[in-house]
């Protein structure tokens, strides 16, 4: 009887302590963030083992499904063609961007001096653990040099940015998530804005100047003003421009260039410019030119 009472007391104490912890986590989110980040390191190592196992099961299931049930050769061919298309899309976009830049003014010819970004290939091994964020889990983490705020792309365009890392994996917040914001520029008119996700699974270019002549069909690329992405990576095409009376800015809906539901491999931009100092200098020159004009 005495043993049972003491067990009951310990149980109660544990419940009270854990409930207090829960309340503290809820009321002090920023402090608890630090604590959880600290705890998360070793837990991430443990979690990586079953995650890799389940990921290979997932891969096995999709390969069996696509390979045997949906015809082996057609799937392989389709995969190759999709890869080629993505590559050509990316190449095409780079060419368009170069042409527009050349036509605009001489200073932007420095694009040619820009070194290609340093990237790291990663595999998509899972989706966000909740239904509330549009995110993906990659199989590269801090051990591979991946850090938060790095950009994630495919040859076709922007995918999102890294928001969380642990030793062996990282979480990408997709460009279509409302919590994401990327500096973008309309390729034709050079109007800058902020690309944010929408609750409908698309993206929106906000803060376009009211007098801008943007129209549906215009392409939006990264402006290079934020650290994660170099200049000129495709984000998507404008599908609808909205201009409400009394508003200070226009906004436009974007159809993302990359099909985010069918991603297997991505590239993490570990350094947007190979020579960071040169890039900084280039940006300063461009800003200087703008101020003068």
């Amino acid at each position: 009887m005495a043993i049972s009472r003491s067990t009951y007391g310990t149980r109660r104490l544990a419940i009270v302590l854990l409930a207090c912890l829960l309340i503290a986590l809820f009321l002090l989110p920023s402090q608890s963030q630090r604590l959880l980040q600290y705890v998360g390191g070793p837990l991430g190592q443990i979690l990586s083992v079953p995650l890799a196992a389940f990921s290979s099961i997932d891969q096995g299931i999709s390969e069996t499904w696509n390979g045997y049930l949906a015809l082996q050769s057609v799937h392989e061919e389709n995969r190759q063609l999709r890869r080629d298309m993505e590559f050509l899309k990316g190449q095409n976009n780079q060419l368009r961007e170069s042409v527009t830049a050349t036509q605009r003014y001489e200073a932007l010819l420095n694009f040619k001096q820009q070194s290609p970004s340093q990237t790291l290939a990663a595999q998509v091994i899972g989706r966000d653990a909740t239904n509330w964020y549009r995110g993906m889990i990659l199989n590269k983490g801090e051990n591979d040099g991946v850090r938060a705020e790095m950009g994630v792309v495919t040859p076709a365009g922007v995918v999102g940015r890294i928001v969380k890392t642990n030793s062996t994996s990282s979480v990408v917040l997709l460009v279509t998530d409302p919590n994401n914001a990327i500096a973008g520029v309309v390729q034709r008119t050079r109007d800058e804005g902020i690309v944010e996700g929408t609750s409908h699974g698309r993206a929106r270019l906000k803060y376009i100047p009211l007098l801008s002549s943007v129209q549906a069909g215009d392409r939006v690329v990264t402006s290079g003003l934020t650290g994660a992405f170099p200049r000129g990576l495709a984000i998507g095409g404008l599908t609808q421009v909205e201009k409400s009376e009394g508003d200070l800015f226009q906004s436009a809906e974007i159809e993302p260039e990359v099909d985010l539901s069918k991603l297997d491999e991505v590239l993490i931009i570990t350094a947007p410019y190979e020579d960071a100092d040169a890039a900084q200098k280039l940006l300063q020159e461009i800003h200087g030119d703008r101020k003068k004009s």
Partner: protein
Amino acid sequence: MKFLIYLLLALVVVPFQTTLLHYVSLFGVRPDLGLVAACLVGFLGGELDGLILGLLLGCFQDMLSAGDLWINVVTKGGGGFLAGLAGRHMAHMTPAVLTAGLAIISCLSSVVFLYSMNPAGIDEVWMGVRSTVLVQAGFDAMVGAGLYLLFRQRWSDDRMVTEGAL
């Protein structure tokens, strides 16, 4: 021992949720297996068990989600705790009661997520409720009831043994 079992359960449920569960999504919404597991254990095992499992599951889910690091810990831990409280005050657990309880806790959990995302206006809140909160609540309740029916016999035996010991 129980803690180890819960740790193992969390290590299976969370990777399963992130890698394989997209095959069974409904309108793009997947059931939250973490919440379902925490609530079931809470209903049947008590507040402490629900709370411990919820905290573990939440911690792992937060590491594999783009949201803030506290949000899953709080919602899953709170869900397990609430389920434990509810379970303690119920003489007979039936699938219908469990389904309703799970749906309510799922809705409460989703409301915390909605609040944390700072919705711009009532339209966005309504959109979130229609597209995610209600679908997920229904899905969670269905999955929970299914699991309960599947393992009912074993759980009721365990409960009788535990109650007999006390």
